[in-house]
């Protein structure tokens, strides 16, 4: 599978890069906690380093490697997991959805010989058009309220996990898109929604993508807001990544990126119910 992934990106002119796993400043996100390591932290995602490479002039890059998130262990979560993350200049979140669809179809063809995969009793045809659902309509339908019209952070995650996600079809890929601004801090906003999508296959969240935020002032403002919110929750507040901010001020081209959970992709092809079946925990 890993070879199929690399094969796909090579065919599209992407450069595979490797960025530090141990970094001085972890990503500042509201609900993601980093493990400390030596003088620094283990990365929770390669995002900020990859974006710095884009600022330095690289146009199509991807990285596949370990990421670490403190306290995340469950059926679909392991504190150490393998992330595939890629960025493409000139693309927006719709463009990288096409990349994702092509990638997943390619991997399926290599591993299964066709674009259909059987997972936990369902025949999933990746070759059919992928269903796009807005967060608004999914929530109105399954949870009875619209988080885009009025966002409630606590209620959003609870309903997403307990009501909306279980209501999504498991026999075909589903893309949940256009998130409330409160649920997508690093995405570009457009008409009151964030340009973010999440791909679900077999009932599992497989990938997350944004039209990336390129405005340094807006990014700094969101970092500061996030810091305050973490502090209010009693969580460790990481400093703002100054090297990243400096790169952002030099200029991040309009681009989009995707983060895909390789372990979960493997789970689909291995027919596994729990992440611990496909990787050591």
């Amino acid at each position, binding site marked *: 599978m890993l070879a199929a992934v690399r094969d796909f990106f090579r065919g599209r002119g992407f450069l595979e890069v490797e960025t530090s796993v141990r970094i001085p400043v972890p990503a500042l996100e509201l609900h993601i906690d980093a493990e400390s390591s030596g003088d620094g932290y283990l990365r929770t995602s390669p995002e900020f380093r990859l974006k710095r490479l884009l600022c330095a002039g690289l146009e199509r890059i991807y990285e596949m490697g370990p990421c670490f998130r403190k306290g995340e262990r469950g059926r679909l979560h392991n504190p150490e997991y393998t992330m595939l993350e890629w960025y493409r200049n000139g693309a927006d979140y719709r463009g990288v959805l096409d990349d994702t669809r092509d990638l997943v179809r390619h991997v399926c063809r290599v591993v299964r010989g066709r674009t259909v995969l059987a997972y936990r009793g369902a025949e999933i045809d990746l070759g059919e058009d992928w269903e796009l659902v807005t967060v608004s309509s999914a929530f109105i339908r399954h949870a009875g309220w619209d988080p885009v019209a009025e966002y409630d952070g*606590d209620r959003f995650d609870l309903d997403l996990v307990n009501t909306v996600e279980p209501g999504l079809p498991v026999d075909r890929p589903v893309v949940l898109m256009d998130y409330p601004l409160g649920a*997508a801090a690093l995405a570009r906003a457009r008409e009151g929604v964030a340009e973010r999508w999440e791909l679900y296959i077999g009932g599992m969240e497989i990938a997350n993508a944004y039209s990336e935020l390129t405005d340094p002032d807006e990014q700094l403002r969101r970092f500061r807001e996030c810091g305050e919110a973490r502090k209010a929750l009693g969580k460790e507040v990481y400093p703002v990544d100054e090297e990243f901010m400096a790169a952002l001020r030099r200029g991040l081209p309009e681009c989009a990126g995707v983060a895909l959970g390789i372990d979960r992709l493997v789970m689909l092809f291995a027919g596994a119910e729990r992440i611990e079946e496909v990787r050591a925990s």
Partner: protein
Amino acid sequence: MYSASDLKKGLKVEIEGAPYVITEFNFMKPGKGQAIYNCKLKHMVNGNTLSKSYRSNDKIDKPELEEKNLQYSYFDNGDYVFMDDNYEQVSIGEDVLGNGKHFLVEDIAVGVLFHNGMPIEVTLPNFVEKTIVKTEPGARGNTATNVLKPATIEGGYELQVPLFVNEGDIARIDTRTGEYVDRVRK
């Protein structure tokens, strides 16, 4: 108080004053969202089940639990009476003892879990010895151990025993399964 991140299967918690044990635990976390801890809980006394979703910042009460070693004394009018190290008597009902009531022998030492001073769980030793008071005589010389017959122990509990076991024999019983283990030679 427990934090939501302390929760796990088997943990004992207190909800609205009642002791519960977590029977199923699922950690869920949507991308970029907060962790949701979905639990199924069982009331430790009446067995009622409950489902609850906790968020990372939720706090859950820790039950006041105390474990004591008691000795069984006697049965009186529906209550099983035990004695602690200070010779204080503690009555424990059938509902808390469950199947364990069949395996009590005089002076047997048990572990009792108290919640706010009330006994809620009794742990017997893994094995007890009880005399067979009634069983049909088995075929002589038959030592096949996969052929069984019913037998009754003192107190009325019925279990399956090998054919060679006779009335008056002492059987060792696994209190966790209620099954015959072997015969005790005295």
